[in-house]
């Protein structure tokens, strides 16, 4: 289990396809960066995904895909100014920023309350 599941996260989309999860991040983030699969986030999470893998920034929150083999793709949100700063710093090297200027102004609400993985597995 990754350290991410022990952190205070929000789930914006759950049990969906990877492409839908990526599209959600692209539509609902102020900034979008594209990284290769295997990009390391936090202490020990390596992003799983079909390239290009989108990471979004919404204020202090990082939006990213989290994939579990038996449960599909999730869009997870975690506050991390450090990870956001690292994305911005590495932009020219291995991170590509979205061509969108300033991101989208309209935000789509997920319509669902954040839930935890532990609650989900009880279902």
């Amino acid at each position, binding site marked *: 289990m990754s350290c991410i599941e022990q952190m205070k996260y929000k789930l914006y989309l759950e049990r969906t396809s990877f*492409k839908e999860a990526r599209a959600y991040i692209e539509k609902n983030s102020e900034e979008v960066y594209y990284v290769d699969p295997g990009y390391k986030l936090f202490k020990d999470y390596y992003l799983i995904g079909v*390239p290009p893998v989108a990471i979004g920034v919404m204020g202090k929150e990082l939006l990213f895909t989290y994939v579990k*083999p*038996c449960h*599909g793709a999730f869009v997870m949100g975690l506050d991390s100014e450090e990870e956001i700063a690292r994305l911005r710093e590495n932009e020219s090297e291995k991170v590509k920023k979205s061509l969108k200027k300033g991101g989208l102004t309209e935000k789509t609400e997920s319509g669902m309350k954040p839930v935890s993985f532990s609650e989900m597995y009880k279902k």
Partner: protein
Amino acid sequence: MTEGKKALLVMGCPEVPVQMSMVIYLAHKLSHAGWDVTVAGTDAAVKLLKAADPESYYVQKMVDVDELIGEIVEKKIDFDICFAFMHSDAGMTYGATFSAISKAKPYAVVFGKNAEALGESIDYPATKIVAKATHNPNPLKNKIDKVVL
């Protein structure tokens, strides 16, 4: 010559019966051909494999798939060929990840009720082995047997 070359078999979610059967079959086949075989999977998939092969007769090396991804990214280990088993979008996403992070020649082993549609959705570079198999392993086994390594 395959002696000493390293093969990786990546298991997806173990809910479709043919996967475990074909993983053991392919691991055995590759080992006999001289490949050094490692099988990666989720905790549940690895437990199923260990229960089926308690003395590691067919599979000697089993690892957690997420830990292995970290080791490949950190360049601690890599493989020459990689068979990613998949019957869902999540499995395909793992296959794409291994294709991107490893120098191994990628194979996508696609099975299950929606094998054809899933196989068509694969847009990362991989040799596709596709068979609509859920309970009967033979359609998939026949396709695997045709792969020339």
